[in-house]
């Protein structure tokens, strides 16, 4: 709900005629004739006798009159949000009136919603949701609309324009073209985004409704993308560069991903030097997380998820014929920053000298079972300096090289000079 700031009655006492004027104007615009002489006493009574804040009194009187004239408005409507705003300035919690072009529509997730999509003006883009109850006109892509008294709220960290029964949606004409601002992947924030990127990986879809998922990259970073099955949606071609307009940028657990169902992806000529995503870090392994050591994976093809102790896969339930694997999940720390690191089996075997077969044997012949493997691996790698390289996704390094650091006499000599040189 819109919160009404209380500004004090004394100050506003003299504004009562002004408020009355404002209200009557609104009704005149809608073609209703109201008597200003009837509005003023109502306001005065609320403000002076009942100490109602003027803004709230204005809203109350206005709603009363709306009802009287049979004008349907949403809760709190009319109290604000009749001034046109730039889309980029719409802040959650506000009632706004915006004008923009519907640049994308996506399939409504529920019958209670008649349309969802993206609305854009020169300042930016925002996602919108039109409730079925709003009885808004049919929305077409590419057309400009005025959304009067819509509510901006926040859902999963993303601003969203809600069109309810009090919102007036009208088709308008607009001069001038709309040029979306294409940004770098590293600059994206939750909401709506435009990028120029290359499809660098295609992953196996892990849901029957999923059309495609994988990784997009540009010079600055990489980001996961997903596309759900929907009429007219086509897969992206791996290795191709696309300019992608109006993708939904979602956030989950602090990681961003792109939902391309609202997006238009235009294939481009040429190539893009994609950030390899490779990073390199030398530091101490300061923590080994649970889930390291000997683990069991789901055997269903393409799943490979880690099973719980009870052999339970979050998707495929109980899987007694699991596959064993070895890995280390931990934190590598160079004293300035700390990064999560994931080390795969081959490197765990080299670092610890424990092979997967040996780990299985340890687990089967030891009262502590898999915990014993965890402890032995921990004792061999925790607190050591490691040199890890690999793809970095959202500050997690998926190591494809990982080795213990050794003492570097050259560095020793340099540091001695540095420490002693300036004395």
């Amino acid at each position, binding site marked *: 709900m819109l919160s009404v700031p209380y500004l004090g009655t004394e100050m506003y006492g003299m504004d009562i005629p002004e408020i009355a004027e404002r209200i009557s104007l609104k009704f005149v615009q809608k073609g209703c004739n109201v008597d200003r002489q009837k509005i003023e006493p109502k306001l005065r009574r609320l403000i002076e006798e009942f100490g109602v804040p003027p803004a709230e009194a204005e809203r109350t009187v206005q709603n009363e009159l709306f009802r009287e004239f049979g004008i349907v408005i949403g809760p709190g409507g009319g109290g604000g949000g009749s001034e046109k705003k730039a889309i980029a300035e719409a802040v959650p919690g506000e009632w706004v009136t915006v004008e923009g072009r519907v640049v994308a529509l996506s399939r409504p997730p529920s019958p209670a919603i008649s349309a969802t999509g993206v609305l854009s003006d020169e300042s930016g883009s925002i996602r919108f949701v039109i409730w079925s109850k709003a009885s808004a006109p049919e929305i077409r892509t590419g057309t400009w609309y005025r959304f009067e008294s819509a509510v901006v709220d926040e859902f999963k960290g993303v601003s969203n324009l809600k069109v309810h029964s009090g919102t007036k949606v009208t088709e308008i004409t607009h001069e001038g073209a709309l040029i979306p601002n294409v940004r770098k992947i590293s600059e994206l924030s939750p909401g709506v985004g435009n990028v120029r990127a290359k499809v660098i990986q295609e992953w196996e879809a892990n849901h029957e409704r999923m059309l495609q998922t994988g990784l997009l990259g540009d010079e600055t970073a990489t980001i996961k993308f997903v596309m759900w099955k929907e009429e007219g949606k086509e897969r992206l071609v791996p290795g191709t560069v696309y300019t992608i307009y109006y993708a939904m940028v979602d956030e989950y657990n602090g990681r961003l991903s792109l939902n391309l169902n609202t997006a238009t992806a235009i294939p481009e000529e040429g190539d893009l030097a994609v950030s390899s995503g490779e990073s390199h870090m030398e530091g101490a392994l300061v923590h080994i997380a649970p889930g390291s050591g000997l683990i069991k994976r789901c055997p269903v093809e393409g799943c490979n998820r880690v099973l719980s102790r009870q052999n339970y896969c979050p998707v495929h339930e109980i899987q007694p014929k699991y596959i064993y694997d070895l890995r280390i999940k931990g934190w590598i*720390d*160079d004293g300035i920053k700390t990064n999560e690191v994931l080390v795969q089996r081959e490197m765990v075997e080299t670092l610890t000298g424990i092979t997967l077969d040996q780990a299985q044997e340890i687990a089967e012949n030891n009262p502590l079972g898999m915990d014993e493997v965890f402890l032995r691996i921990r004792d061999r790698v925790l607190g050591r300096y490691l040199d890890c390289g690999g793809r970095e996704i959202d500050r997690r390094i998926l190591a494809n090289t990982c080795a213990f650091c050794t003492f570097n006499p050259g560095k020793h000599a340099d540091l001695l000079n540095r420490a002693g040189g300036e004395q």
Partner: protein
Amino acid sequence: MTPADQSRPPRRDLSFEREPARRVFASELREARVQFRDGTDEKSPSYVLLPTGERCNRVFIVGAFTEKKRQGDQNIFYRARVADPTGTFSVMAGSYQPEAMQQIARIEPPAFVAVVGKPSLYETPDGAIIVSVRAESATIVEREVRDCWVLDTAQKTLDRIDAIGKTPDSERAAQEYHIDPVVYRKMVYDALSQLKM
């Protein structure tokens, strides 16, 4: 998209960030006298301000585990001493650090250990201030890890000395500690000199 969009901080910064483990020699940490919280929340991280001018919520130390003492009856905890080339760290682990406590219980001195932990300041009944490290883990390591740590810590300490006056934390430290950088350079030099050439 717009300047308004760009000024909005990226949301991923709001998510949890693990505090890095600082590298500091024992004789510097021993001199720390300022502890503060970043924020008013009970869960805001607590920092010890290092004399060379950096806040420090966590440390990574490697040294010789020379002594351990089991204390307490109901609430057992361990106190241990870990020596580096410049001095001694006081390390403790109680029932709130079960992993570290079990590890320390099994370590027999002398041994090289790597300790990850959180430093904090305590005042003794006679008014002296003690810096102690509450261990999160303590693992026996090879001598080479200790040698790497001395290089690493020497480098980080010199970096901090070079940044004095250039960061807000170092300006604050300058007011609190009035250190002489020459003394700290000498400490680093001496630590490095003790390694085999």
